């Protein structure tokens, strides 16, 4: 039958149905591609052509989008797509051995599809399950707490071609792991509390400003000011409008608090969005949900339905004429850079997630060029709380410049990983004591792009005045090798650089190559100097924050854990990036030569110490 694929799915019918559900709207391209892929496993050239025709977009645009996002595939990757989360915390929990076990049992190499086209196994960036790793995505659904036994069971299920929907529910159990509640997580908050308390938009805006609320994504811009700018901005064109966007693209390695907020506090988040819409005069809000949290889509939509039924969303909210607001959830597809608000807006418009130039800022020219307030999940939940309980109360929590509380996602070497909410100003040492961390040699705060904190700094505080953070808090004890932590992050940025600007695209790769060279025992002082040069270029010349901060962890660890680098260095001034003599191995084999001309007789390098060096043969 024409158009019917090997799995018996009528592809044309699927594409037609998905297109018509989205009115063939080109701004919904991401959702169209995702839904099509969910039904027919991959995006074939033919599929892309049909989507392009349907949406009246140039085919190159559609292919460009499909090629940009890690979770879209333009080649078949098997009916079972296994993606191991590869954050440093997953590595510390042993994901490499587990993945090797899975590959061995499936007779597979990582990154390859099995010959029968059934399964592929690969790695992906942090999946937001650092408190219950090692984690794995099976067809983009998370499986937590992987063990050798669990690997074996999954391999059996794949071999028997059991549909993922029929796999044991316990595999997919994601715990909240809330360990410490404070003003927000411990609040007595019923759906509607904030909306019922609303006075005039100006009064609500004044309260948010008065509360001192600042952005919880890490940058810490005043929420009240952002809303004020957005409210004052005028919509343009034939369909002027204002928009609210909730940034739930929680991609920073080691953070997972938005996952918990959206799992168990979704009403508070949606209510915050509604309050924001009320203040800035928006009728529509979007949640940009990272692709890794696809499993939350149905539960979140159910909450939205309930809120519509309760008149907390939709037309004339709580009977107030003119107060119309509704929320839609937009799924991302595995691109860290989309956490940057302008890349997020591009993605929301159905494009590649390439950051925009600023100014103009989203408050004046955001989604579809209209004034848009983009806020973090936690910021919006806090705004709902402020609207319900007042600015004065909120301002009394925290420090003078950092009002309120911060939710930390704690993972790594501690007894009780999970979610901890603290008033701003809490000391790092207090956090470490609470989560049961022992012999800690470092904390990586605010993710791969954040700050690496050594023990002599554990008296510092989590606050905008001192250590700002989006919430990621990874703990490393004395058994860990901080060089490898930095190397993991360096590779993370290679993968996540959007490729738009040269300093970041090339710089992140140069940095990772230098780290690999040192790891392979080929590094010298020259390479350290080179690393500083690359970091300087990344910081000063990159287009967006991703590149500007991509060298942070290497810079921090070079300063604070310098011996972990030095002990790997070669004493010589310069060492080739590979073993010269081995680079002639294939020709010696082909020609049978073994004369002096077929070798390089160079004084052999000596490592100052054995740690971490391995006899690599990159050539």
């Amino acid at each position, binding site marked *: 039958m024409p158009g019917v694929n090997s799995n018996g799915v009528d592809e044309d019918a699927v594409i037609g149905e998905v297109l018509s559900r989205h009115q063939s709207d080109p701004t919904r391209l991401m959702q169209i591609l995702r839904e099509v892929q969910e039904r027919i496993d991959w995006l074939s050239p033919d599929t892309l052509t049909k989507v392009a025709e349907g949406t009246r977009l140039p085919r190159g645009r559609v292919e460009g989008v499909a090629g940009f996002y890690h979770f879209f595939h333009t080649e078949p990757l098997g009916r079972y797509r296994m993606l191991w989360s590869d954050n440093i915390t997953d590595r510390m929990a042993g994901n490499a051995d587990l993945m090797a076990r899975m590959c061995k049992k499936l007779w597979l190499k990582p990154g390859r599809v099995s010959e029968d086209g059934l399964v592929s196994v690969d790695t992906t960036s942090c999946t937001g399950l650092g408190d219950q790793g090692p984690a794995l995505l099976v067809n983009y659904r998370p499986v937590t707490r992987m063990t050798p036994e669990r690997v074996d069971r999954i391999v059996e299920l794949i071999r028997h071609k059991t549909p993922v929907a029929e796999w044991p529910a316990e595999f997919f159990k994601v715990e909240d792991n809330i360990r410490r509640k404070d003003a927000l997580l411990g609040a007595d908050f019923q759906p509607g509390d904030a909306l019922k308390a609303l006075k005039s938009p100006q009064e609500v805006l004044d309260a948010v400003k008065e509360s001192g609320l600042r952005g919880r994504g890490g940058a810490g811009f005043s929420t009240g000011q952002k809303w004020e700018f957005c409210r004052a901005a005028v919509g343009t064109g034939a369909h002027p409008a204002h928009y609210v966007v909730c940034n739930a693209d929680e991609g920073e390695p080691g953070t997972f608090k938005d996952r918990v907020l959206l799992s168990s506090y979704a009403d508070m988040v949606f209510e915050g969005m509604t309050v924001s819409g009320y203040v800035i005069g928006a009728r529509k809000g979007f949640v940009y949900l990272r692709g890794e949290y696809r499993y939350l889509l149905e539960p979140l939509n159910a909450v939205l339905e309930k809120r519509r039924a309760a008149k907390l969303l939709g037309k004339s909210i709580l009977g107030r004429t003119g107060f119309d607001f509704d929320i839609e959830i937009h799924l991302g597809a595995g691109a860290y850079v989309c956490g940057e608000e302008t890349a997020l807006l591009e993605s929301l418009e159905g494009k590649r997630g390439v950051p925009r130039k600023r100014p103009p800022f989203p408050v004046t020219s955001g989604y579809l060029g209209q004034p848009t307030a983009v806020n973090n999940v936690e910021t919006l939940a806090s705004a709902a709380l402020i609207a319900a309980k007042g600015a004065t109360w909120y301002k009394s929590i925290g420090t003078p410049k950092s009002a309120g509380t911060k939710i930390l996602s704690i993972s790594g070497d501690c007894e009780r990983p999970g979610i901890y909410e603290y008033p701003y100003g809490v000391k790092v040492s207090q956090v470490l004591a609470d989560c049961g961390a022992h012999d800690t040699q470092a904390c990586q705060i605010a993710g791969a792009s954040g700050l690496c904190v050594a023990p002599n700094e554990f008296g510092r505080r989590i606050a905008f005045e001192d250590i700002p953070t989006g919430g990621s808090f990874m703990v490393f004890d004395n058994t860990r090798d901080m060089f490898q932590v930095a190397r993991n992050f360096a590779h993370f940025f290679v993968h996540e650089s959007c490729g738009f600007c040269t300093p970041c695209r090339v710089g992140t790769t140069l940095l990772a190559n230098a780290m690999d060279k040192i790891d392979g025992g080929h590094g010298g002082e020259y390479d350290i100097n080179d690393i500083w040069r690359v970091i300087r270029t990344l910081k000063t010349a990159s287009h967006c924050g991703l590149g500007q901060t991509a060298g942070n962890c290497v810079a921090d660890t070079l300063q604070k854990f310098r011996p972990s680098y030095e002990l790997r260095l070669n004493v010589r*001034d310069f060492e080739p990036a590979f073993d010269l003599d081995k680079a002639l191995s294939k*020709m010696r084999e082909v*020609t049978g030569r073994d004369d002096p*001309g077929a070798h*390089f007789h160079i004084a052999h390098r000596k490592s100052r110490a054995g740690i971490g060096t391995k006899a690599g043969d990159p050539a």
Partner: protein
Amino acid sequence: MNAPLPKRKLKVATTSLAGCFGCHMSFLDIDERILDLVELVEFDRSPITDIKHCSPDCDIGIIEGGVCNAENVHVLHEFRKNCKILIAMGACAINGGLPAQRNSLDIRDILAAVYAQPGRGVHIPNDPEIPLLLNEVHPLHEVVRIDYFLPGCPPSGDAIWKFLTDLLAGRTPTLGHGLIHYD
């Protein structure tokens, strides 16, 4: 020429490794300025002079092309040993360039395909006089320390002139707008 004259002439050596000599040809595009240049420098080992080995007191070594065989490695080591400043000139020296296109294939497969003769099997040239090929082509900085990179395919005569006059005058070379082309 604005650059102050150095007290003595600086010794410059040049060579082409796995390159096409295009950078050297471009070097000649400095045209009559080469007369100014020889007031400032003396050419040591170079295709221009046909001197076979570097003097031990060279100041500047300019190298075109990447590293594709054992001889390239020896020449590069000789340059590094004898030159105070080493410059990687052109795309191949900096990135491996066109010769590095072979890196995606196994050298054994390439030779087997290239030297296959219909009905007579494979005869790969094999003589101690012929330098062995490396498993992969490498940019210079993976083999020795490189001090400066002069990008371009090839860098224009003007770019080479600007770069050298900066260097000879003691300024860190910068090409700036108009002198860097990637297409």
